[in-house]
């Protein structure tokens, strides 16, 4: 069994019941409208809108990204997966699925957000694009490995954001900083250090996930 097959299986079952997609879509609307209502008639500054963008991304991610592993536990298909696939294959398949989901979610958020918040203007598009891609990768990787832990801890829903936040905090801080910089119109060359930190976070998290997944997966 290849990671690609696992991804296809997850994709088809997701298309059939659309649980994660629906909850993610609803959460995007809920979070953005809460921010819009709380802002009201006030005008928000540019930097604040850049920070709030990642707040929307974080909370939306927390609502749906745990599904990949929790759904296997709920259906009771974990044992079958353990028999037919190697742990690394399982992690790769789930990671690809979460990556696609996070990417789709972030694209929708970005378009909706820039349409609804006039203050959210990016001057340096190249820098923001790279921030966006590396940020999406980081969120997908960290949330997948935490989702694996959560599914073994009896699928406690409230535990997911509690466990994810400290792990995602350095990522979110660098992302907010980079978004601010790209709103100023800083060129890619000037922000290269921050981009490298972002890339190193992704690499570190990816390697730790592959190293430790064995221990979570085998009971």
């Amino acid at each position: 069994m290849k990671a690609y097959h696992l991804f296809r299986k997850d994709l088809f079952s997701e298309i059939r019941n659309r649980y994660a997609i629906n909850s993610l879509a609803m959460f995007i609307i809920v979070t953005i409208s809460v921010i819009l209502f709380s802002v009201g008639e006030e005008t928000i500054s540019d930097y604040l809108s850049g920070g709030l963008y990642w707040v929307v991304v974080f909370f939306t991610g927390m609502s749906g990204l745990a599904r990949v592993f929790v759904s296997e536990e709920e259906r009771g298909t974990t044992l079958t997966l353990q028999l037919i696939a190697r742990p690394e294959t399982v992690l790769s398949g789930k990671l690809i699925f979460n990556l696609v989901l996070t990417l789709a979610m972030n694209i929708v958020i970005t378009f909706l957000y820039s349409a609804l918040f006039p203050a959210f203007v990016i001057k340096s598009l190249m820098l923001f694009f790279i921030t966006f891609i590396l940020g999406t990768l980081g969120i997908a990787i960290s949330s997948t490995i935490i989702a694996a832990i959560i599914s073994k801890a009896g699928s406690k829903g409230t535990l997911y954001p509690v466990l994810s936040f400290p792990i995602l905090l350095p990522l979110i801080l660098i992302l907010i900083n980079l978004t601010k910089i790209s709103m100023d119109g800083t060129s890619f060359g000037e922000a290269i250090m921050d981009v490298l930190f972002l890339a190193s976070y992704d690499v570190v998290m990816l390697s730790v996930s592959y190293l430790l997944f064995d221990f979570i997966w085998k009971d």
Partner: protein
Amino acid sequence: MIWKIILFLLMSYVIIAGISFPIVEKPEAWYHFPLIPGLGENAKIIFFHVPTAWITVLAFLMSTIFSIKYLRKKDLDDDGKSQTALELGMVFCILATVTGAVWAKFTWGEYWSWDPRQTSIFALLLIYGALFALRSAVENEEKRATLSAVYSIIAFVTVPFFVFIMPRIMKGLHPGSADDTNVGPVVNFKMNSNMYLVFVLSVVAFTILYFWMWRVGSRSLNIKEKLLKNYR
């Protein structure tokens, strides 16, 4: 026993010297502390703030080392040792946060200003809290040990981002930040030899105290588990 006597002597000296030795502009006598511009009498809290912060990191490191050991050998003893280190680390983390906030109030003017160091100690508090939440959520002993070991290793690899990278890309007030020009790490060149000696003794005393507490804690956890096993 000998360690307890050493600890008692060191701790008494650090507490008496750290609080009562005078700070003067031109240190002459052996017990004088130098006046550090901008800090004044506030400088004395360094004898209690830095050691607690050091113990916080040390406890987290030890908990991670025992977690790795547990994952390799699957010995529940190692999990108990890791848990004791976590509990002590949480206590010292709160102490470091509080002493740091008090110091910040009198030097920077605010209890909390999201300086990079404050952000990182806050993240460490969150990690400790998340680990306790995870431990309390799982009933099965082996599963709890495995999951918390895995989580503490994942959390541990994010620590370098806070400790080394954050303060260098964010503007901060704490010594050692990116825009830090003259305050410098206070430890290195603003202390005279007497102040430095008390500081080092304080770090040593707190480290001995930590190891003593950790040994008592893990032993009592061991005995508790044995008693529970017999009781069942």
